């Protein structure tokens, strides 16, 4: 029995004159991993940021775990504790060490005791393989380590769903694997995930479903094997041709 964790219907978002999302429907079921792919500027980040209201939607409806976020009276801070977000640029709190990064919101928002927060933090640091970095400052960590700490920080809030916005795009190639490894393990543990990524191999292996976005719409949606392996739409085909083979000159240029 699958229950819905994220349900987005008719989502629209404009920045002034520019309409970035023109009516998006997405549904993520419990335990599903949904990957969003698409060209730069197609609105992938905007979609993800709307899911926890970092951007305010211009229209449509977003329901996460039964809570309608687009209801003006919703307690958004409370709702956000159940939605983990991982950013491209990590965004670790630069004045706090790793442990404090993981405990600060647990303490201040969830009102957990210091001891409980630390136990949960240590457990999650272990999950991402960084138990030895408890007392390090963010600036002392590599990009890959910072991103894994950021994942552990989000996990420490016990979210129902994790949002990832190109979590490996800012990383050196040799560090990408560590982060993807952690995400793969999360997926195996049954975490519900909505992932914007350019890592086609990862999407193919881990995603239950893949969405291809372009021009403010979801152009194609389906199992990873189909959308990435045998895309039906011409726009998906040319995008994948460009991504999978950067020297390939698509119809609209690389």
């Amino acid at each position, binding site marked *: 029995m699958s229950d819905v964790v994220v349900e987005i219907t008719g989502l629209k978002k404009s920045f002034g004159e520019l309409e970035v999302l023109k009516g998006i429907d997405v549904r993520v079921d419990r335990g599903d991993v949904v990957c969003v792919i698409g060209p730069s500027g197609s609105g992938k980040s905007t979609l993800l940021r709307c899911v*926890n209201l*970092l951007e305010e939607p211009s229209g449509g409806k977003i329901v996460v775990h039964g809570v309608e976020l687009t209801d003006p009276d919703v307690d958004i*801070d*409370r709702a*956000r*504790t159940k*939605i*983990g*977000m991982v*950013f491209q*640029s*990590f*965004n*670790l*709190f*630069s*004045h706090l060490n790793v442990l404090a990064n993981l405990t*600060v*919101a647990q303490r*201040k*928002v*969830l009102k957990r005791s210091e001891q409980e927060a630390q136990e949960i933090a240590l457990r999650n640091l272990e999950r991402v393989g960084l138990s030895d970095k408890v007392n390090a400052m*963010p*600036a002392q960590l590599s*990009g890959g380590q*910072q991103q894994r700490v*950021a994942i552990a*920080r*989000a996990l420490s*809030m016990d979210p129902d769903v994790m949002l990832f916005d190109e979590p490996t*795009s*800012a*990383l*050196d190639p040799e560090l990408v694997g560590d982060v993807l490894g952690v995400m793969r393990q999360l997926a195996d543990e049954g975490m519900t995930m909505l992932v914007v990524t350019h890592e086609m191999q990862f999407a193919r292996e881990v995603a239950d479903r893949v969405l291809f976005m372009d021009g403010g719409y979801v152009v194609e949606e389906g199992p990873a094997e189909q959308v990435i392996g045998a895309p039906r739409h011409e726009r998906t085909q040319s995008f994948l041709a460009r991504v999978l083979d950067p020297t390939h000159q698509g119809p609209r240029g690389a």
Partner: protein
Amino acid sequence: MALSKRQRAHAIRAGQYGLLVVVVAALVLTADWEQVRKAFFNTEIAAAMFPNVITVALKNTILYTALGFAFGLALGLVLALMRLSSVAPYRWIAIVYIEVFRGVPALLVFIAIYYGVPIAFQIQFDPLSTVMLALGGVGAAYMAETIRAGIQAVPKGQIEAARSLGMSSARATVTIVIPQAFRIILPPLTNELILLTKDSSLIYILGLFREQYELTKFGRETLSRSPSLTPILIAGLCYLIITLPLGHLSRYLEKRTGGKKISTPESTGLGVSA
């Protein structure tokens, strides 16, 4: 004569140094050093100033400055937050306050609080409260702008991360933004402290008891009783005892935060992939 660009730069530099040497030499040679020594370096008068110049005057200068700075910092933070508030009247109040208190001489503020307030409200502040309110009130206007700049310099991603973890806007400001902003503005704040140290001398306008004298008042008072400018020199040196280490600290902090900025997550992460 054709000089290369580099040679011309050298020639100009040499000319500037030469001019400097001539000016200094002229000043040294034309000054009446005997008069200067008599006026400023009277060892007897200097010796008579101790230990009070330290135990009373220097101590009071530090006390007044610390009070003014503490009050100014707190009020400056409030003003900075009001200035950045989404509530328009808060912004207006902050802007008016900052413009007014930055625009009028601090001396007028001392007079207004010490002599003006009792006339209007029948409240008489003592000199200590007056120096705190006046010095802090003026300092707050400057510090508010510094703090605002610091808050705005905190990367937006830090706030988004805090909000995404469920922190309210106020909670994120207190827990994440303000601590980071203060790291950024520590060097300019140290400079404000130096300025306040000197402005604490404005307390001379109030009627003070001897034990309330700070450096400038103490120096002037000694001056009026002795035919020498030595007290002024001693007072000046005492100011340097406070301000030189602060200047040093400010430069050190600037270097440290400057070095730190390079290694924030944003820049290392994106820099590597570029």
